[in-house]
């Protein structure tokens, strides 16, 4: 018999930050909105010199942060609760609850740090692993302490720009310097979109395919190995390493109640520095982030939260704080922290069609409705973008979306439907213009968002290896 994680939590697990009386840390005031880049003063995760200037080494790390304070398992769990640290891989699930569920479940837990970052345009996990590997490893070691395990798996994708070399070098350096660490196991999986999903990661780490599983219970209760499995994002554990140093309250003060702590975002598309990672605090707006990268005025639209995110009208996005509550008001979620900027003059329908075609080709090929439905949705989006669809075709596309929604073992098909729905509602005028057969104002605009395999007309029907 299994109890849901909500029920199995002991009293006081979800206490509000600041409720712990015996904190050895000073209680700071809230941090105002600010956006910082790598090495900028005031930043937390990105503090210190760049990796090239020695910031990635253990000495640079210790200069910036000092040694990791000795905490026991209960201490780490208290830090997790007090900080309300939420997962930064896209789900936003509180790490305290994952850890607590795994601790109370039957069996010795498996801990996996997910640094695969399969979102093609996202760079935050790669950046934090390459520039601040010791922060990630410190945090991973703390999760191991919280669960009393002696091995941690670091999972990455086999991509050309993988942060595996930086992490392996950091592990070797720590070994030589005698840092008290768990055993590290670096795992390199296939570079596919759905392979970064937590159950796919858990499956791969257990020796199976890097494809999502149909789960009826949380992985933290029982993973594919039969043991409770905690899969958590690399940025998330890096935050934990900071929390252990500055205290949960000081960390929490960098955020707002719906989005505690500072967060990393990646800007991409029509921005001065595509692929740049920024750290933001407080109720910084999307406009603040884009301005920090050098964009002077609101763009046409912003794709918020990754390819599996939603479109937000540019003027609206500019004013919207990048926090869970504020984004919900514009039907968006922080997701993996990606902000894809669509310039004026580009066609949003073309951009969406390219993304949907890519995502359709990235289906794991497991669930029937996803396999059959996503290519059709992609075709409909392409027809709409090229002016070959009438009002009835749009209605049919929406109906197909309703069918596809909730049909898969993972959230992949749902994400595609949400993206299409947001396109249809945010770009209503563009849709109408395309239906009327008026010339598209973005017909000659070069592609904006870097979509992998965009040269392929059809999705990848080759089911490349998943191992």
């Amino acid at each position, binding site marked *: 018999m299994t109890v849901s994680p909500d029920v199995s939590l002991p009293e006081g697990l979800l206490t509000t930050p600041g409720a712990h009386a015996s904190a050895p840390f000073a209680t700071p005031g809230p941090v105002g909105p600010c956006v910082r880049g790598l090495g900028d003063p005031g930043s937390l995760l990105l503090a210190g010199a760049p990796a090239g200037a020695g910031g990635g080494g253990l000495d640079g790390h210790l200069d910036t942060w000092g040694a990791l304070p000795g905490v026991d398992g209960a201490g780490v769990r208290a830090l997790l609760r007090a900080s309300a640290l939420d997962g930064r891989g896209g789900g936003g699930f509180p790490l305290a609850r994952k850890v607590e569920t795994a601790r109370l479940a039957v069996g010795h837990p498996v801990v996996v740090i997910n640094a695969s970052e399969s979102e093609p345009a996202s760079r935050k996990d790669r950046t934090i692993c390459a520039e601040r590997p010791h922060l990630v490893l410190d945090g991973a070691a703390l999760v191991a302490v919280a669960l009393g395990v002696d091995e941690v798996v670091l999972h990455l994708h086999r991509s050309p720009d993988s942060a595996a070399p930086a992490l392996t070098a950091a592990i070797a350096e720590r070994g030589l310097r005698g840092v008290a660490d768990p055993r590290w196991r670096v795992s390199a999986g296939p570079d596919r979109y759905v392979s970064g999903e937590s159950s796919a990661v858990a499956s791969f780490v257990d020796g199976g395919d890097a494809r999502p599983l149909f789960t009826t219970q949380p992985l933290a209760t029982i993973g594919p190995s039969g043991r409770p499995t905690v899969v958590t994002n690399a940025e998330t554990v890096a935050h934990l390493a900071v929390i252990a140093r500055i205290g949960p309250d000081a960390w929490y003060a960098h955020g707002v109640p719906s989005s505690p702590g500072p967060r990393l975002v990646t800007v991409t598309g029509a921005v001065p520095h595509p692929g740049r990672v920024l750290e933001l605090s407080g109720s910084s707006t999307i406009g603040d982030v884009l301005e920090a990268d050098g964009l002077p005025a609101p763009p046409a639209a912003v794709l918020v939260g990754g390819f599996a995110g939603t479109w937000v009208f540019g003027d609206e996005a500019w004013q919207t704080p990048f926090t869970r509550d504020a984004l919900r008001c514009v039907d968006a979620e922080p997701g993996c922290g990606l902000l894809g900027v669509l310039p004026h003059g580009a066609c949003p329908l073309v951009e969406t069609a390219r993304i949907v075609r890519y995502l359709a080709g990235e289906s794991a090929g497991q669930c*029937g409705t996803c396999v059959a439905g996503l290519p059709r949705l992609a075709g409909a989006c392409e027809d709409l973008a090229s002016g070959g669809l009438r009002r009835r075709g749009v209605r049919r596309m929406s109906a197909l979306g309703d069918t596809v929604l909730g*049909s*898969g073992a993972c959230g992949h098909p749902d994400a595609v439907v949400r993206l299409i729905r947001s396109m249809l509602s945010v770009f209503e005028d563009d849709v109408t213009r395309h239906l009327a057969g008026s010339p598209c104002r973005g017909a000659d605009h070069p592609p904006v968002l870097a979509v992998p395999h965009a040269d392929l007309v059809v999705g990848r029907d080759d089911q490349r290896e998943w191992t």
Partner: protein
Amino acid sequence: MSATIRIDPILCRGHAICALFFSDGVDLDQWGFGKVAVAVVDNPRDLRRARRAAAACPNGAFVVAERVATPSVRA
């Protein structure tokens, strides 16, 4: 006595046999892949149908997880 019914979308191959046995419990899409319409079955007639649907599925995708009634704490 109640049971939770689930269709494993990875195992489902769209034979749609479950819908023959338990038509109100399953929504089929245009390809024959099923989604459960009612997640919890608590009357004996539907439970019987759900069990038949589970037994008939050639892929074992239709799962009936029966819950044994626990004695109520309140008298």
